[in-house]
């Protein structure tokens, strides 16, 4: 993959520390990610996050990055995430290439919901390889219990959750993303040390 924006760590300050136990903390975090995608739209708590990720990267967002990003995954950073401390953190701990093109990213780190690109700006996979789609990590402030009604695989009947704040018109974009199934992007919402998954399979009904 192309990585024109990749720079070597050049700061004088060392990057922020990663997981206290890189092996087992990554395993615990992965199990939460798996549970979040296999049981969409429920707020799960991550109990093993990096202690002091670089601002404004939250603990859960940093944990997801340390668990999934590596040299095989081009990462797109939104303007709020694209700062030296965060780049150093990612390059040092994950060694992931950074890409300036959302459409080339395997993962996108979105710390500014209000200015997030549309979901359709990211790779949605190919008909024969729907797995080649982007995974978005969208950092929000909090999860509210109300919100739209979700149905689909992983949800026994229905579920409600409202991450906030969200990009303008987000649920319409998410509905369009769901309509692309089996193509589409998958989203992890992160807030503080909490996490919720929105796979492309989840149907979103109007908020009642």
């Amino acid at each position, binding site marked *: 993959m192309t990585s024109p924006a990749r720079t070597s760590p050049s700061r004088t300050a060392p990057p922020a520390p990663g997981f206290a136990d890189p092996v087992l903390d*990554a395993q615990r975090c992965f199990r939460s990610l798996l549970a979040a995608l296999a*049981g969409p739209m429920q707020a799960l708590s991550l109990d093993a996050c990096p202690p002091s990720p670089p601002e404004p990267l939250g603990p859960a967002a940093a944990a997801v990055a340390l668990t999934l990003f590596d040299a095989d995954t081009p990462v797109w950073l939104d303007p709020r995430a694209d700062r030296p401390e965060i780049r150093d953190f990612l390059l040092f701990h994950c060694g992931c290439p950074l890409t300036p093109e959302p459409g080339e990213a395997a993962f996108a780190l979105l710390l500014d919901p209000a200015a997030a690109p549309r979901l359709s700006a990211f790779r949605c996979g190919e008909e024969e390889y*729907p797995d080649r789609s982007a995974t978005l990590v969208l950092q929000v402030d909090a999860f509210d219990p109300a919100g739209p009604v979700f149905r689909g695989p992983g949800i026994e009947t229905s579920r409600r959750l409202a991450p906030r704040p969200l990009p303008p018109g987000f649920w319409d974009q998410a509905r369009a993303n769901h309509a692309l199934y089996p193509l589409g992007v998958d989203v992890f919402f992160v807030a503080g040390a909490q996490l919720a998954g929105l796979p492309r399979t989840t149907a979103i009904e109007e908020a009642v």
Partner: protein
Amino acid sequence: MTNPAERVTNPAERVTNPGYNYAYLDEQTKRMVRRALLKAVAVPGYQVPFASREMPLPYGWGTGGIQVTASVIGPDDTLKVIDQGADDTTNAVSIRQFFARVAGVRTTERTAEATLIQTRHRVPETPLREGQILVYQVPLPEPLRKLEPRETETRRMHALSEYGLMSVKLYEDVTRHGRIATSYDYPVMVEERYVMAPSPTPKFDNPKMHRSPALQLFGAGREKRIYAVPPYTRVRSLDFDDYPFEVQEFDTPCALCGSSGVYLDEIITDDQGGKMFVCSDTDFCAQRVAAAGDSQGARDPQGAGGLQ
């Protein structure tokens, strides 16, 4: 649930086999498998290609299942391994010992106690619950492979949801045998989109996959594919209106525990043609026998029957 005394969290103690990373696989491999698992869960029934590694056992012995388990397992897990329903056969014992050594996990034969169950060709009779993960060992992940040998073509057929060939195959069963004769690895439709091979489980187990509360993960090591069925996902066995899907039925209950409505294995007992039918799920059978023994008390201290 976890006994703190048995929980191994100190990094110095946790790998009883120095020289290997926790759970055998290196971290880069685990991340690759984990990313594949997440995409597999996001597209139920679709086979995600992954860079399967050489494992310390031959292909066909569960290399795919082991890689999935190794990428998922942690010190808080309790592992059960099933080989054709049994907990005490070579494959099950070896894999259980492998993870006890390289991952320091507790192991069990009880379905209800396990958080992670790796299985070769059976779904436990004891209903699974939310939070449990069932890892299937899969030899041939592509349900269309015996009908179309070219990967490029089967991939295209999945992309177009073009499954007419599978219907023809089942129809030919009907014309030849008067019924759908496929009895294991019976193809299923997942979430009305992808036709999926449930691995060579008896078709008896197919209904258990439908809207199961547990997460089901599938690993095929030689064929380098991972796929998944999330909880509460629709899994429909393919059939025809006039030849509906049916599971196997048995004339007699289990000779050991008396269960009916379970999958039975035929056991040859002598060279005079003697045989008996017993539960394929050894844990389920043993618990039924133990429960019957408890309730019968002194009347039958041997439990309800047994191999003579």
